[in-house]
């Protein structure tokens, strides 16, 4: 496990997470849920195809599914804006989470994005506000929320769908404050130092797990998830089922308290003990 702490390995994970052959959210939706019905639109502005939402069954039980989808071929990638959601994507997600709450369905999330889209329209329509509301709503949900990061987990755009009771990462997924290129550009004014940045950012699944930010790392076959999609989908399904079993036992206030505590403890390590 130690070799994964070296910069080269971290960068290899980034490359894995970005691989063209890497399965995207749709593949897992097909592999995990039955009876899936996709629901479109945010009822405000449009339908953001970077976010797929709908209702399906997990082992027979109706659940709400919200997923970031990067797209398969080039044409689809463009239609889905490479998985970079506009505010409409986060507002579609909010709409479907409220719907899930109304009908008492758990919310299961599949996260895979470089980050929220950085466009003119996105700013004009309140990208920051959309993400903020999404975060806050997730924390207030009265139903269980469980998320899996399957590829790139970039910045607030990923966090908006990962503010859940339980969160797992696939072994080759990465989760970071922004892309290593962006990180290197901001900190060292040199995007070419991305590899070096990746090694310092603690963005690999095992490093994120070690920091206590995710509950589980879901193993992938050698060569990555594409080598055995069925097995990875099954492992994700098991994680969803296991998490729900645990969360179902909680009443609403305990469930919400569980989620609050999960995030409340993050970043209080080593702070002035007199206040702790």
């Amino acid at each position, binding site marked *: 496990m130690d070799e994964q702490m070296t910069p080269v390995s971290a960068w290899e994970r980034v490359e894995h997470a970005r691989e063209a052959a890497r399965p995207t959210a749709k593949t897992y939706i097909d592999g995990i849920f039955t009876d899936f019905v996709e629901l479109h639109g945010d009822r405000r502005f449009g339908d953001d195809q970077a976010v797929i939402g709908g209702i399906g069954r997990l082992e027979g039980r109706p659940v709400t599914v919200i997923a970031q989808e990067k797209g398969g071929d080039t044409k689809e990638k463009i239609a889905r804006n490479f998985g970079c959601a506009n505010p409409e994507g986060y507002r579609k997600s909010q709409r479907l989470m409220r719907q899930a709450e109304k009908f008492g369905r758990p919310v299961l999330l599949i996260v895979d994005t470089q980050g929220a889209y950085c466009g003119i329209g996105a700013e004009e329509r309140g990208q920051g506000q959309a993400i*903020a509301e999404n975060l806050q709503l997730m*924390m207030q949900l009265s139903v269980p929320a469980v998320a899996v990061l399957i590829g790139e987990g970039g910045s*607030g755009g990923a966090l908006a769908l990962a503010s859940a009771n339980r969160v797992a990462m696939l072994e080759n997924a990465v989760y970071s404050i922004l892309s290593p290129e962006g990180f290197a550009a901001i900190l060292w004014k040199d995007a070419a130092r991305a590899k070096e940045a990746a090694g310092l950012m603690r963005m690999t699944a095992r490093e994120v797990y070690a920091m206590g930010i995710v509950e589980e790392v879901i193993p992938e076959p050698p060569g990555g998830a594409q080598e055995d999609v069925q097995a990875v989908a099954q492992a994700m399904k098991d994680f969803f089922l296991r998490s729900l079993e645990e969360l179902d036992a909680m009443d609403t206030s305990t469930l919400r308290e569980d989620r609050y505590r999960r*995030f409340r403890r993050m970043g209080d390590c080593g702070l002035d003990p007199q206040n702790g």
Partner: protein
Amino acid sequence: MGMFDKIRKNQAMISVPLGAAARKPARPSQEAAIPPAKSKEMSPEDTNIFAKCPACNAVLFTEDITENQMVCPRCQHHLRLSARQRLGYTVDEGSFVEMDAELAGNDPLQFPGYENKLRAARAYTGLTEAVVTGYATIQGEPVMIAVMDGNFMMGSMGAAVGEKITRCVEEATRRRLPVVIFTVSGGARMQEGLVSLMQMTKTSAALGRHGEAGLLYITVLTDPTTGGVTASFAMLGDIILAEPGALVGFAGKRVIEQTVKQSLPEGFQRAEFVMDKGFVDAIVPRRELPGRLGQLLRLHHQEVRHG
């Protein structure tokens, strides 16, 4: 508004605020170049007596600016303030009781050079972190208040900033008080990686509980408010005010230009623009802020809560 954008154009995004220089006669150490001393408009001599407005380039007596609450008397450009200056202009004299003054973050990633940068930022600002929190009254109305400080590593949010704001909000919920937050931030603190990202959820969650308790939260967006702060507590106010000309956005200008490969519309991401798009309730000049906050607080004053 058009004129306003024009006069703002010359100001570098990260120029040292005149406020910082005027307040601190001691020059920052080499390390403290974090709020980068890039402004060639200022030399050590003129920080004492003269200062140049970064917006209209007028050379003014520093005293004339400080006496005008750090607003350029010529063009009304709102210069950036330190947290202490802001508190001085906002809360009732002698009412501020600071909490968690010594609370400081650690170095969760053991990121090379971060400890030194923190040390330098502390020496430069006299603060332990990029936000000051506590209890105060504004025109007699009690509030819990958090004021960010852009001189401390660009007001970036790491674990300590998130923790201080969360504690401030939780205290407000316990004491059934309104919350007022003045934002100024370059976004999440890079050197703390994911730990700083998580502060977005943490602070938003605390505000969610405060809101569910039926309590008022007012945000005041000041120049600049960006990134993870915009995408969390800055945009969650029941009422969102902004200072004139403040830059308010999620993504940075350069990032957007690189993404869309076109130039940005006039006044893009300025408070006036953001208000026009429906995300700000009112733009309030600095001098009028205490009055406006007092008015809003009185309109929400809860003498007795039933139940």
